[in-house]
């Protein structure tokens, strides 16, 4: 029934951060063989035959149903072009797996194959039944959590006034109260700009003679530290001798709390914050 809505090739979802994941890269999905669009009339005929005969067991979207397997990821169908691999199975059945035989012509089986091949195949499968919202918590419990966890630094009537309106997407709000700037949208990506004011990390460098320099931390490793000085220049220091380096991460209090939250608390606090319109 709903199959028609899925029968077009959707855009690939954004590539997940491959990072050192060793694999990944949904962006490469297009690099795999996909079936060229078939004659729409074939797809329509195939959809009708499929809907009547196959959908109960294999699902209206061919992703599996009452007892029948997912056909989208099926080795037989991934290698099939025009029904030539599908035909022997349909016409003879698979008695040991409970699949009956069907008396379809090769042309009809080609139509069924055209319908199944109209679904895009990818390992970074689009979610097709996305939940309407990530807000699942209890706002009242969240308010109490907020008072005990957050109120020493933040207030609903003060700095967080209207925070629920500043974030169009509650997921972005949740990421930003957990650790400001975290998640994809928080880094200025799409999906509603972050309203979180994320103060930068700073560093204080004390030179051998006691002279101090302070500024935004640009980069640090075991050997060098670079800060943006008040004079507008970048200053890089070699970390040896008597150089003292103190980092100040304004997000530290948020990070320290992370291991102490239960997921329920997180959901409850988010449910509360979205009410602060």
């Amino acid at each position, binding site marked *: 029934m709903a199959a028609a809505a899925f029968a077009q090739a959707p855009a690939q979802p954004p590539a997940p951060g491959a990072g050192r994941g060793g694999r*990944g890269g949904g962006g490469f999905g297009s690099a795999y063989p996909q079936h060229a669009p078939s004659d729409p009339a074939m797809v329509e005929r195939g959809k009708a035959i499929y809907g009547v005969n196959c959908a109960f067991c294999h699902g209206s979207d061919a992703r599996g149903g009452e007892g029948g397997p997912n056909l989208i990821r099926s080795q037989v169908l991934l290698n099939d072009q025009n029904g030539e691999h599908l035909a022997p199975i349909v016409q003879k059945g698979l008695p040991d797996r409970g699949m009956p035989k069907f008396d379809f012509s090769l042309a009809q089986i080609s139509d069924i194959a055209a319908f199944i091949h109209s679904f895009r195949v990818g390992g970074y499968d689009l979610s097709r039944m996305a*939940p309407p919202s990530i807000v699942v918590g209890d706002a009242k419990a969240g308010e109490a959590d907020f008072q005990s966890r957050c109120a020493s630094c933040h207030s609903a009537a003060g700095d967080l006034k209207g925070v629920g309106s500043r974030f169009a997407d509650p997921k972005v709000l949740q990421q930003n109260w957990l650790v400001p700037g975290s998640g994809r949208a928080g880094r200025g990506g799409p999906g509603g700009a972050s309203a979180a004011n994320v103060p930068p990390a700073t560093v204080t460098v004390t030179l051998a003679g006691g002279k101090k320099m302070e500024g935004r931390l640009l980069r640090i490793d075991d050997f060098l530290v670079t800060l943006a000085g008040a004079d507008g220049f970048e200053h890089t220091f070699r970390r040896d001798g008597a150089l003292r380096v103190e980092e100040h991460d304004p997000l530290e209090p948020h990070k320290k709390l992370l291991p102490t939250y239960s997921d329920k608390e997180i959901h409850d606090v988010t449910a509360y914050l979205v009410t602060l319109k």
Partner: protein
Amino acid sequence: MKIERYLLALSICLAPALAPAQGLDPSVILQPLADSWPTYSGDYTGKRHSRLTQINQANVKNLTLAWTTRLTPGSASGDGGGFGFGFGGRGGGAPLIVGGEGSGETGGRAGNVNIRASILEVNGILYLSAPDNAWAVDARDGHEIWHYFWKTKGGTHIGNRGLGMWHDRLYMETPDDYLVCLDAKTGKELWHKVIADFSLQYFSTPAPIVIGNHILVGTGDDLDEPGFLQSFDPETGALQWKWYSVPMEKGDPALKTWANLDAARHGGGQVWIPGSYDPETHLYIFGTGNPTPAYTGQSRGELDNLYTCSLVAVNVDTGKLAWYYQVAPHDTHDWDATQTPILFDAEFAGKPRKLVATAERNGYFFVLDRVTGEHMVTTKYSDSVNWAKGLNAKGAPVRDPGKDSTIGGSLVSPDNGGATNWPPPTFDPASGLFYVPSSDTYAMYYLTETDPRGAMGLGGKDEQFVASFGSYLTAIDYKTGKVAWRHKYPGGGRNGGNGLLTTDGKLLFAGDPSGNLVAFDPPTGKILWHSRIGNVSNAPETFLLDGHQYLLVAAGDTLFSFTLY
């Protein structure tokens, strides 16, 4: 001892002079790692521990650059141009050999190559690879000898872990699932062979491992297809055996750990990182990938899903499973167990034992008996890890279903990249410590697919990074599994740096996350030397040439060779 070592070195040096056409005799790989680097991990143990001592604690501060060479992938690197700023003599004159069955347009990523491969060093020549590309480079001055380019049909071009060598032949896997055999002297192709079904979206990244007359070849896949390891004949490319990491037929004893046969046959468990080999037992010991669908596991059943996320031992002669140990029953976070395990003989509880150790992407460290698979140690080496409720009777972590992806989001440590990943660890027999690049990270895992059947592959979730509590070089005492020391890299990134090397010169080399190649004191983690060469992209290696020890590492598209003068 010293004399023996000298004789061994001499015999290896003389072999090529006596029989230059022999290339690499597979028996050389059985020797402990010293003069050459003939296979992925240097030798079969996975220790990445070299017996060389010429570069050592006393003189490492004098280590200096011998040469650097920049490599250009794709077909643009041919005669007359394309060679970067290399100091090599012949520059762009190296012959370009082109093969492949595709148009080459979707892969190769010309001009943008990141060398993640382990580099072979045999008889003064380096053999290395990147997706669709292989090179031979002179180890003395870095000049390019030949370049082979494979025109791809497509597929995931995420990386290539290196080449395998058998006599005068090289073997490379391609992203579009071919095993290509090259003449090591000329780079000319001898044959290529399909190793996996590209229509099923397999892609191939591993370094082939040569053991006697077996070429062991793994592949990858992100579309719910079964994982396997294959063994090919080195001369003909004929299949010798194929071992599936999931049940493929009725009657398989592992089938009871799956909802049904269809789920098992789409259950993943890819073999995408080389393993280690024990010549005494003929067991090839390696890790398998995550079960699929990865994040929405309901179609797999609330069962263990063997042999995914497992350390497995397969007999190289028969392709039969000898033992397995599952490090994560029913994984739901795509934390592949594809870390190269390390084999070593050492004392445990007062007795000499034959051990295998692995630090897993899921944050746990394990020690087993490598002959029997008997469990000995499990510990958590990443402090923040929070996805398990405890350990089961076999010592494996038990997943907390509450930390699966949920609609409201689950705060989970580690993030999908894991507490570590594929970059190789090292073991130093002198310090008795196992070293691994690691990080302590949190991410929110949101379930986005509410269809009760779940998603396919890696779909159905939205993982959003939250915070890193630091990147580390972590040293673990194998006897207790406890962290002996951790060096916290400043800057708090989410990536623990790249692979590692230890040597009998009492040195531990690591690429840090900030673009430095660093030498540490193995027992304490004290820093002894560094050079800022850019983002180190593979694990450092070492070898001896003309009586001089070299340290070789890649940073992106450039090789750096260090030595003492």
